[in-house]
């Protein structure tokens, strides 16, 4: 009998523990807000009820059962959590710049949940970010879609488990500089970048075939088949060919954008998003027809030769041409005010509020393949919400509270001077890097680049 009790007890404990292992889900009722749903219009004086992390109900005069926290948002604006489709925040390593194709590497291995930048992003209303490999390689590493559940010690708590796999590609000056000029190997030119990608895909086809033929005979009687070499790089490329991974490609020039569209069409790959895309406006119809869209800067330009031909109207032109368009940060600083970046499209291109907001919510969600879960305020979606004091596209807007899965991760009234989770026992002050931009896209490639010092801007 006693033994039985122990067994029951251990089952209960085990069960409790596996519950604990899940990321926290919250309940909250936000009342009387101007709800910017993004996909279903603007709802005045409306309540949003989140239960167990999911938006349960949107409507007037909702009531919540006893213990649920109620927030009066009268006069305030509620929008979906902001989604950044291109970030390098909270990653310990950005570039594995040692090879032109590093599809085998995974940003999930280097997520750093202690990065205080996560909290700063939350304070800017950003709840989801796509952590990408840098742009040193033609084919970089597999990215990680993160929900910024700040406060955890476990990197895996930050992973958005529902998100499909994604991978970084890069065209143009960065991969040719790092590998061609830096190490004198292919790719040295834009043609070389295309060749690298085509060869990679072709090799992956052969690889896939080798394994398929091995697997088809290995269990047969008297099989003499021996296993081929396992190659994680080619396996990942084969997964791209099988449509299991969405490509996010760093690109600037129209010709190279169209080049990759053609390469992908030749190999039957249609899960393709372009990122940066400064000359995207020149190939907008093609982007609309063949890709999952373009994730652009609002107005960054001229920091290197391939980005001189740029326009701040890019996002608006793409949008009007039915390209799924998003605005990204690629910066630990910009990620704190993507709503400003989106608002610039109203100054340059006159987008409507809803169009402008879609650039930082539902559209990046579509590009990451997570639009069924996040990106708008709809019943059944995850409770990722931001309360603003003014309309988020106003220059006066300041985020007040940020929720992920119904759990509050930022509250301007509870904002402490020091929000670090973890402090070094020996570092007296947190190191500050003045050239923040240098830390990101091309981070870690200095060793490979003779002329690295000559370039200041590295996106």
């Amino acid at each position: 009998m006693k033994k039985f009790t122990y067994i029951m007890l251990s089952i209960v404990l085990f069960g409790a523990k596996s519950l604990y292992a899940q990321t926290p889900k919250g309940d909250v009722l936000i009342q009387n807000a101007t709800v910017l749903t993004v996909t279903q219009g603007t709802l005045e004086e409306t309540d949003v009820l989140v239960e167990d992390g999911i938006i349960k109900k949107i409507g007037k005069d909702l009531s919540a059962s006893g213990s649920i926290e109620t927030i009066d948002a009268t006069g305030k604006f509620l929008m979906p959590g902001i989604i950044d489709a291109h970030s390098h925040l909270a990653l310990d390593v950005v570039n594995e710049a040692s090879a032109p194709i590093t599809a085998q590497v995974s940003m999930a291995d280097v997520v750093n949940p202690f990065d205080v930048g996560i909290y700063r992003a939350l304070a800017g209303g950003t709840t989801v970010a796509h952590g990408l490999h840098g742009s040193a390689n033609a084919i970089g590493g597999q990215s990680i879609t993160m929900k910024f559940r700040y406060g955890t010690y476990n990197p895996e708590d930050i992973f958005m488990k529902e998100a499909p796999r994604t991978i970084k590609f890069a065209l143009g000056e960065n991969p040719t500089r790092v590998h061609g000029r830096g190490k004198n190997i292919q790719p040295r030119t834009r043609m070389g970048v295309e060749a690298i990608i085509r060869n990679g895909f072709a090799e992956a086809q052969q690889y896939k075939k080798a394994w398929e033929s091995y697997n088809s005979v290995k269990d047969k009687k008297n099989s003499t088949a021996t296993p081929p070499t396992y190659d994680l790089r080619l396996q990942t490329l084969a997964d791209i060919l099988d449509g299991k991974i969405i490509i996010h490609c760093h690109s600037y020039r129209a010709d190279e954008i169209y080049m990759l569209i053609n390469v992908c069409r030749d190999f039957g790959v249609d899960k393709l998003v372009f990122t940066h895309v400064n000359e995207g406006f020149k190939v907008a119809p093609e982007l609309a027809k063949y890709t999952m869209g373009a994730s652009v800067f609002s107005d960054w330009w001229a920091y290197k030769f391939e980005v001189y031909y740029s326009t701040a109207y890019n996002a608006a032109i793409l949008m009007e041409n039915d390209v799924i368009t998003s605005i990204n940060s690629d910066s630990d600083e910009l990620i704190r005010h993507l709503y400003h970046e989106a608002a610039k499209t109203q100054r340059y291109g006159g987008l409507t509020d809803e169009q402008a907001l879609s650039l930082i919510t539902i559209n990046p969600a579509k590009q990451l393949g997570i639009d069924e879960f996040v990106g708008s305020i709809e019943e059944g979606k995850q409770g990722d919400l931001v309360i603003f004091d003014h309309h988020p596209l106003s220059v006066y807007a300041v985020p007040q509270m940020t929720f992920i899965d119904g759990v509050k991760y930022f509250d301007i009234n509870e904002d402490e001077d020091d929000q670090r989770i973890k402090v070094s026992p020996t570092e007296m002050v947190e190191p500050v890097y003045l050239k923040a931009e240098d830390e990101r896209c091309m981070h870690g490639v200095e060793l490979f680049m003779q002329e690295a010092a000559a370039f200041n801007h590295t996106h």
Partner: protein
Amino acid sequence: MIKRQNTLMYLVLSFCLLFSNHSFSQSDNSGQRRITGTYAVTNATVFTQPGKSISSATIILKDGLIKAVGNDLNIPIDAQVIKGDSLFVYAGFIDVASEAGVSKPEDVKRSDDMDPSDPRNEVAGITPEREVLQYWDVNNGEITNWRKAGFSIAQVVPKGEMLPGQTALVVYGDKESSNILAESTGLYAQFETARGVYPGTTLGLMAKWRELYKNAQLKYEHASLFKEKGNGINRPEKDPSLEAFYKVINGQVPVVFEAEDELEIRRVLRLKKELGFDVVITGVKEGSKLAEDIKDAGAKIVLSLDLPDNKASKAKMEDATEEAKKAHERVIAAYKEALSEAASFEAAGIPFAFSSKGAKSGDVFKNIQSMIENGLSEEGALAALTTNPANMLGISSFTGTVEKGKLANLVLTTDSLFSKDAKIKYVMADGYLFEYEASKSKKKNGDVEDILGVWNYTSETPGGTSKGTVTFSQKSGNLKGEIVVDDPDGGGKVTRQLENIHYDGKELSYTFSIIVQGQEIVVNTKGTLSGNEFEGNLSIRDMGTFPFTATKEPDFKL
């Protein structure tokens, strides 16, 4: 022909000499051989294992083994008696990851046409087939120091990058003995990568690990199939690197993985979960928060004997802003937390051992005392030095406690082990007795005059060993210095001025900068001075910390 005959003659001659030496060996004209292999420690307080002691006990040791422990024992007639009246006796300490006496294999030459994206394994720091014993020397001075700190058994780990080779178990015994207990006890792994080739970062390292392991499994399958059937099966290509994984795949030995912080430990656990190997995680400096994950994974934990510098308490904060003071308090709290990691692991019920890698032998007791002051029990500390590592290494049948039949590995101290005044008086390792001066002649800290002059330094960086000089001078009361280093941009040397020179009579630190390909790199140097020896580290942001030692040139001034 003549030459060959000569060689033959020499051979015969040397054989004769060898033989004659042997046949007359009863007469030891060197005076080196010990008189007896039998010892008796009498009337001592003996801690037979953590938490258990016998007072006024005698230990009889003979030919490398403990023959008897207890009260009222007969002392053999040939025994050398060690009067233990005021001595405390413990089992010899066991170090689960040591680099003492291990040299770094020479860097492999890189061919000019090497493709950095696909280098040969040796170039990428992948040499799991190497045996550490090929690079280990029992007569190395570092071993003398660690033995003096009470260690008599160590698992030695190879030097290198991500997979430098196999570990081995050795005893710090007589210099004439081979001192090997076991070879290939584990596959050593680190988060280190070779420069300029794939894998170059933790990102690539993780991917490469998965790939190597899976290919080792496939190779093993293939080789087994070939062995079983043969007919019609392709010959498996020989691959020493992959074959080095077989013992891990078969569960015979663990991966000994160095992981310092929480994120690194999680990365190791991630690999373990995906690939399924047994793992001993060494050099751990934090991670008690991961106790549940560590238990679930069945990973074994080996804490580093190196503790962080207490920089925070030295900072002058009187004039600081409130915000800075608060931040400073957090650093102090973090420092405290670092010191209490051992206690937290103990409280979480995770038995841990210690690793000497990266630590200084002179700091061991000071550091363990800090751990005890911050909550670790004395019993737990002794277990971490003796029984826990013995269990972890699977050698508890013959060592780890002071019991009949165990190897004669002992530490004899002048006071109970973790008390402030305790000094090690004797260490017995493999039945050989080493005696130390236990007097309290503590040299007082020196002054600035001590460092003035020219120092010759040696440093080990991924770029290889470099040598040069550091010169300190004093001008109107100001300490100045300069360092001569190899020019990183090509042949020749460059001289750089030292900045931020601090010397408190014991610790010396300074910084200097060098230009590498147009980029300024700041090098921090820090270490301790004892007499004419300086032992410390160079650290460079984003690159790591590397050993740096210097010796002062004799001063001929009178």
